């Protein structure tokens, strides 16, 4: 997936001279995960900027660039470091269009690696998409594989408004997929049905999509249950229509995410399904999530991040309800 993201940046920077990249170690080093590899050599240090170790400065500068008409793509090394720039994101990125009554908009992309599964240290494994999804004025995008990562990053860069772009660390090198040469764009705000079924709807995104698909395999092989898997791709704005259409068919839902359960995306997803498909529900909507604790150290990581057995168990309870 790293290569696919790198290709998206290449293609977009070639397509549009206003696109530029800034962040810690993105230039000479090519980024902490090598997503920006070779960009500086190709586009120069005026368009691929090594910033100081100051997240607030990265986003603050980028807001200024965006107001000036540029299209900065910022990299935060780990999403756990983003609170240093949360003020710039919430107070400025998200608000400029409203504040200026539409005169200004902020075409900015903020990329951050997120999530567990790579046994990293504290502040390196969090899944905190709910903070951004909750802020009006931001879009929150999380791809689940190389091909949709490339297409969504292209869409995010072309979007006229700020997009928070989460990249699952566990997919950076593990996820491999053939990607066509031509540039592709997936519209933001639209979920995809990753697998069709009529017994239960599994909702997932990012790294959890693979967990959901594997759980669906188990349920198909061991329970004979045709599970529909929905890949959100965009957490916010939420594609309620796709969710409701699916649940009207299945009547049962399990939501999987790496963020802690309480007040997480699963709650909003469940509420939206109840709004739209209440009379089709055969069972309470279940959530399989990380626990309501700060992200645990790597030794306990496996107990915290949802895995296939937990998803299968929740799905079976829901199917048997």
């Amino acid at each position, binding site marked *: 997936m790293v290569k696919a993201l790198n290709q998206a940046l290449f293609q977009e920077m070639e397509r549009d001279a206003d696109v530029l990249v800034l962040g810690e170690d993105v230039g000479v080093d090519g980024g902490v995960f090598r997503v920006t590899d070779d960009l500086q050599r190709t586009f120069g240090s005026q368009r691929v900027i090594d910033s100081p170790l100051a997240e607030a400065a990265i986003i603050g500068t980028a807001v200024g660039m965006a107001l000036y008409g540029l299209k900065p793509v910022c990299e935060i090394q780990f999403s756990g470091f983003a609170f240093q720039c949360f003020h710039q994101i919430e107070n400025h990125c998200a608000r400029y269009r409203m504040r200026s009554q539409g005169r200004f908009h902020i075409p900015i992309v903020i990329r951050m690696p997120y999530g567990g599964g790579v046994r990293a240290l504290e502040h390196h494994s969090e899944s905190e998409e709910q903070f951004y999804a909750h802020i009006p004025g931001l879009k929150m995008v999380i791809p689940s594989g190389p091909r949709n990562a490339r297409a969504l990053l292209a869409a995010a860069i072309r979007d006229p408004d700020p997009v928070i772009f989460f990249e699952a660390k566990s997919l950076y090198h593990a996820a491999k997929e053939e990607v066509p040469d031509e540039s592709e764009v997936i519209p933001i705000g639209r979920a995809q049905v990753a697998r069709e079924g009529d017994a239960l709807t599994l909702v997932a995104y990012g790294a959890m999509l693979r967990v959901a698909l594997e759980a669906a395999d188990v349920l198909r092989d061991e329970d004979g249950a045709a599970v529909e898997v929905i890949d959100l791709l965009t957490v916010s704005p939420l594609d309620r229509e796709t969710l409701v259409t699916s649940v009207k068919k299945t*009547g049962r839902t399990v939501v999987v995410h790496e963020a802690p359960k309480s007040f997480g995306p699963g709650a909003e997803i469940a509420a939206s399904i109840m709004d739209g498909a209440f*009379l089709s*529900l*055969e069972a309470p909507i279940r959530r399989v999530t990380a626990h*309501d604790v700060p992200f645990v150290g790597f030794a306990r990581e496996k*107990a915290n991040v949802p895995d296939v057995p937990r998803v299968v168990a929740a799905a079976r*309870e829901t199917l048997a309800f």
Partner: protein
Amino acid sequence: MPRPFALPDLGEGLTEAEIVKVLVNEGDVLAEDAPLLEVETDKATVEIPSPFAGRVARIHVQPGQSVKVGDVLVTFEDSAGVASGRGGGAGGGPAGFGTPLAGEPSPSPRREPSEASNVGPPSAASPVASSGQGAGPAAANVTARAGSGRAPAPTGAGSPQVPPSARASMAPTGETAASSVGPVPATPATRRLARELGVDLRAVRATGAGGRVTDDDVRSAAGGAQPGTTAPVADGRAPERVAVAKPLAVVGVEPPPLPRFEQWGPVARQPLSHLRRTIAERMTLSATLIPHVTHFDRADITELDAIIRRNIEPARERGITLTLTSFLLKAAALSLREHPQFNASLDPGAGELIVKRYYHLGVAVAAERGLIVPVIRDVDGKPLVELQRELAALAQRVREGKATLDDLRGGTFTITNIGALGGTGAIPIINYPEVAILGVARGREEPVVHEGRIVPRMLLPISLTFDHRVADGADGARFAAAIVRRLERPEQLLLEW
């Protein structure tokens, strides 16, 4: 307080059973409706489900042992701290509904069942008056609740996901959910199905996990006989059937929400007693399902009244207080024989009229707690004196709250005599699932043109309410006339006794 579970009345007049198998061990934690015991009566082997969720403290019986109705079989440990009350009370304990997922450690400690009741709304946690009690507990529950009056949700993280009120009162399998407090447990999809089929969930027999009404329950309620209601015929004979029948269409209405009465002044919410609720449900059922029509008539009972007066003393010497009611019973039963469609029940699901070849007549008795209708069996074949004696005994049992279930069921037709309280007439509601009911007001002397002269005569106003699906106005008039004729010519009763 440990909760004992006694052998319930298994119906069909059975008073004794033999324990075949004990399906649980002391210390087991059971979900509500989990299989508990297998007992054998002289009719069948029956599995008795656990009436509540909780831990089995003691098992008092062993296989091979004979037990009587009312014997304690199993004692459950102190749990939700609420009375069980078949159908009326609040059970409790998280029964497989809000349990955390397997392998998912709950962030907060799991609640023990004993704690669960603490978060319940007051109405669910206190026992609803059982049939043996008056308004005591009900009065204690009178609370002037502000706001919408809905039960508050349980508080605290990790608490069961459903308020105890929704789960607590799940009726044991085989009872309708109608006796529950709060909404009937059913998934939204089942609710939609019920709405589409016009089925009232409260009248549906719940067979699902935790007392839930399932899609199948709704479908069978819509399609006719509910599972389990087709109780075996007492003597095993199949009902007579002349032709194949089709179900009638089912109609239903959802009651609209009530306004917030608090906005106009203070109110108190008083939980209905078990009996009151039963009456309310049966009246709603009857008035909703049956198109009622009432025929009025007056019987000249001058002669009958004279006969009764003349015989009061002789009857008293035989230990009997002679009343008009026994004559009414006799006149009605004999008239029913001529008009069998009024001694019947409509089976809309099957599209059949079930005509009963027995004449068990109910007599409405105003007990202190509410209206109760004890049943006198085989009224047509019994001497008047015997009827009078049975009637007195039954009425006394009812007033003392000692009537048995068998005293109260099996009726085919009902008589309600409101004469004692005055009035000139009333329109009674049919005692569902019967077809007709006879209302009798106070007999009065009135000036009447009798054989060309105005004379004082004793007139008895009667009102016959019947199911217009089963009979038409002319049928009702003829049936009422048959009763009137017997009351007006008591010597005719003599011939038929």
